[in-house]
């Protein structure tokens, strides 16, 4: 298929979108993430929080697609368990939808934190060099020497399980990779002519870094951040599975799996669906990451 000749050169964004959308898998991944994000945003429209954390013991382990009577606000209401019920008779689909909210928040917040902190440190290290660089980079090396998940586990184990500590643990462990990444890019960019020109014009360091250096370092960071979100969500489910993350009755995909574990024989549906949710989200982010890499990184493009 030959693309029509454009009369005007494309802007960088158009160029990027033109390349990105050629990768059908990546576009599919993006669709999945948009779907999950909108479901997470509207979670309360589908199921109310009180309903999905409240026990409905008589309906425990109701299979997929069961219509059952639930006790709701003192009244008996008929309710369709689309994906069945868990060991407390709570709606699995409802818990998954509210769990999506937690996972999406964790993914964005931790990586935003890591990119901001790691990016600033990396930019400082790369731009100024010297003792500052040595201190920052050795610190990052030591943090990288501890496996991510183990480090996050240690932080949450020490600080106690709570949502804030979970965010903090995953956020901190994600920082060093961005320090290295941004520093490496800054080193390649900072000696180029346009930076010298900005210096010659008398621009301050801060302005040079923010306006001239960093925009040229964003490509690898964006790719890594996308894969990083997947990693963060995985870490969060892992910690919740071990009982160190989101505490029940608040739903999270990891703790749903943890609660389903003793009932593998009697209620496999409580095990299968939350896991599928985790897998599709991680898969989608990985696909987007691959697509972004192809679209943004000219060196790796075929």
């Amino acid at each position, binding site marked *: 298929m030959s693309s029509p000749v454009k009369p005007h050169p494309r802007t960088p964004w158009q160029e990027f979108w033109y390349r990105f959308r050629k990768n059908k898998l990546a576009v599919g991944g993006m669709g999945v993430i948009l779907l999950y994000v909108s479901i997470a945003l509207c979670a309360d429209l589908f199921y109310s929080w009180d309903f999905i954390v409240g026990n409905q013991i008589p309906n425990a382990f109701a299979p997929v697609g069961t219509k059952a009577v639930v006790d709701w606000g003192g009244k008996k209401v008929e309710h369709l368990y689309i994906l069945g019920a868990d060991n407390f008779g709570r709606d699995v689909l409802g818990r998954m939808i509210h769990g999506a909210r937690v996972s999406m928040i964790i993914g964005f917040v931790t990586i935003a934190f890591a990119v901001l902190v790691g990016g600033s440190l990396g930019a400082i290290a790369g731009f100024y060099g010297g003792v500052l660089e040595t201190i920052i980079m050795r610190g990052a*090396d*030591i943090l990288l020497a501890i496996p991510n998940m183990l480090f996050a586990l240690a932080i949450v184990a*020490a600080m106690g399980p709570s949502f804030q500590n979970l965010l903090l643990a995953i956020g901190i462990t994600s920082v060093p990779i961005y320090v290295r990444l941004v520093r490496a890019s800054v080193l390649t960019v900072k000696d180029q002519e346009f930076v010298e020109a900005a210096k010659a014009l008398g621009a301050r360091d801060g302005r040079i870094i923010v306006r001239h250096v960093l925009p040229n370092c964003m490509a690898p960071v964006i790719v890594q951040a996308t894969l990083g979100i997947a990693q963060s969500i995985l870490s969060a489910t892992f910690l919740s599975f071990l009982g160190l993350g989101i505490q029940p009755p608040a739903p999270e995909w990891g703790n749903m799996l943890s609660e389903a574990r003793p009932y593998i024989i009697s209620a496999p549906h409580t*095990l299968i669906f*939350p896991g599928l949710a985790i897998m599709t989200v991680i898969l989608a982010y990985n696909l987007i990451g691959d697509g972004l890499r192809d679209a943004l990184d000219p060196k790796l493009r075929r």
Partner: protein
Amino acid sequence: MNRGQAGCSLIDFEQRGAMLRYLFHRILQLIPVILGVTLIVFTLTYIAPGDPARLLLPQDASDEDVAQLKHAMGLDRSFFVQYYHFLFGYDGPGDSFDYKGLFALDLGRSYVSNRPVFGTILERFPNTVLLSTVALCLSILVSIPFGIISATRQYSKTDMVVTVLALVGISMPAFWLGMLLIWIFSVQLRLFPSLAVPSNPLSIVLPAITLAAMSTAVQTRMTRSSMLEVMRQDYIRTARAKGLDEKVVIRKHALRNALIPVVTVVGIQVGQLLVGAVLTETVFSYPGIGTIMVDAINRKDTPQILASVVFMALIFAVVNLIVDILYAFIDPRIKAQYIQAGKKKKRGLFHVISRKATP
């Protein structure tokens, strides 16, 4: 002839000198990493909320009792004194809380079982090593052949299947895969037991598959892309032009070069396997260091948590060091690099340790 040999041994000597320098350098670099890791882990427990002395005493204990116990445990000392104790040992007023320090592999006794914490770890560590080794072998045996097949038949149906499976593999949480395997093979088909013990080889099958899945996927992807890269090189075209059999081209010319980056990835996976073992062991209730750690966390058994985290981080660092050194032996180009860089200062001290597996 003689002169040739003399020249040869001179190069050998120079190479060996460079390799020894390199070895020495790499081992030296481990020291700040170890100190950093211990400092971080120690700081975490130091700032952790909750007073271990109060946890050990009955709930109605008076503040005086708590203060007394804290003194006996050395917990009333300053941060740096306590960190020094942590590394080099503690000799308190009583004998019950003495320990010889991290460097003597003694961090005291568990609050729960009252056994030496490192005793428990070292006792169960072989189980984790066994599980990780089986998983590693499995992942190499599966990933490299499939990576090669996938690359040599790019865009074929086989390639599609392998690529998709590898993508699913890197996206699947290990604990979920483990439970699915239990559901299918233990509950439905009744082929394998759902609880794993090291003495029963049959019971290790499912945990090994669970643990190997992620590494297999990562290595398959790496082998495939590395092979594709190599197959594009000029020397492959030359080899084909010489009329060599395609099998020989792949085995002798392509594979040898393609495997070098794969070795690095496999090396990184060794460390990841040890960490992944935490989850796999929990799912299959396998008696390894992962279950020790999780139990300790659930019981707030601080010395045991500290010891297992530090132990795993150190093993991770040492394994990476070994892989790094092996890597230099395998790839002649790296050796050459170190001979050249002998005089120059090498940048990026921890370059391989810190290279993480990004699927």
